[in-house]
């Protein structure tokens, strides 16, 4: 269970982040454009996200593949323009970055705070993992969206790696069964393996799909079953990407 202090801390962070969303969003979008990053047919992509998510409120668990440090930024950029996130705070998603990555400099910590990041300690003790799960459950129970990378970190093989799958995403769904799941496959055209940042001038392929994982199993077996269903969907989306002759790779 989260302490009152932790709950209040997350609410304050949410309020601050929401208050600064226009500034932070467009500053980051400008930075991405300055590096030449582009999402072809961005308007179409955003419409597709809008159609998948519909008008209803969260909670949303956005499960994505993971290849670069800015994947969640790219996904958020693809999901909606800043002004829409200003109006729909439930669509401005929380992120769970590695504490080591987000704590490198003071400005990264600041960006992480206003970017609704909850730093997590990878490979940390079980108590730490439980606290993260409690925080996610709290955020989801407030109708928020959370971006999760089921692989736990950037894939070392450049593809969705079922061997690395953490079952935490299944636990999140068990904790908040009302959460809806959106699988997102995002990949730069020149992204062969994992990197810190996409290459300059990168164009991103982004597809999303709703899934409704379900299981009759309980406990850890249930969490594993749910997580495997989500990763199976991401794997299938990746196969579509590599088999699609129309995709510019």
């Amino acid at each position, binding site marked *: 269970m989260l302490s009152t202090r932790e709950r209040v801390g997350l609410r304050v962070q949410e309020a601050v982040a929401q208050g600064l969303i226009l500034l932070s969003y467009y500053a980051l979008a400008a930075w991405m454009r300055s590096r030449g990053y582009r999402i072809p047919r961005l308007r179409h992509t955003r419409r597709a996200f809008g159609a998948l998510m519909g008008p209803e409120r969260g909670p949303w668990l956005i499960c994505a593949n993971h290849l670069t440090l800015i994947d969640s930024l790219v996904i958020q950029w693809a999901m909606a323009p800043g002004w829409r996130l200003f109006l729909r705070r439930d669509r401005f998603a929380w992120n769970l970055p590695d504490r080591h990555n987000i704590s490198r400099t003071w400005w990264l910590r600041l960006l992480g705070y206003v970017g609704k990041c909850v730093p997590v300690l990878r490979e940390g003790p079980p108590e730490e993992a*439980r606290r993260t799960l409690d925080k996610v459950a709290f955020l989801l129970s407030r109708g928020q969206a959370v971006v999760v990378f089921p692989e736990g970190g950037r894939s070392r093989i450049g593809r969705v790696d079922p061997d690395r799958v953490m079952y935490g995403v299944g636990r999140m769904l068990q904790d908040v069964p009302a959460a809806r799941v959106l699988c997102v496959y995002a990949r730069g055209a020149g992204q062969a393996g994992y990197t810190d940042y996409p290459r300059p001038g990168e164009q991103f392929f982004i597809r999303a799909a709703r899934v409704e994982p379900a299981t009759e199993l309980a406990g850890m077996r249930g969490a594993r079953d749910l997580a495997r269903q989500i990763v199976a969907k991401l794997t299938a989306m990746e196969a579509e990407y590599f088999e699609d002759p129309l995709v510019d790779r």
Partner: protein
Amino acid sequence: MDSATAFGKVVEIIKPFVKNTAAFGEAGHGTRIIEDLGVNSARLVDIILAFEDEFGIQVDDESADRVRTLGDAVQMILQKTAPAN
């Protein structure tokens, strides 16, 4: 079940997940599963579920969290398979 039998079964279950095979060859009760054997932490759940299947036990989250070494695993299994008084 005695400790040596449990240890042997634990080692067999963990074997497919081990990356540090050199350390595995010298594994003892104090060997740490993640740090020493290089087992991916994500696979600990699979290992715990394999214990449940092999030994016919139920492992709750708290017990699972306490398993850090091979000895911890053996201890937990012996406790859960011990006949009730």
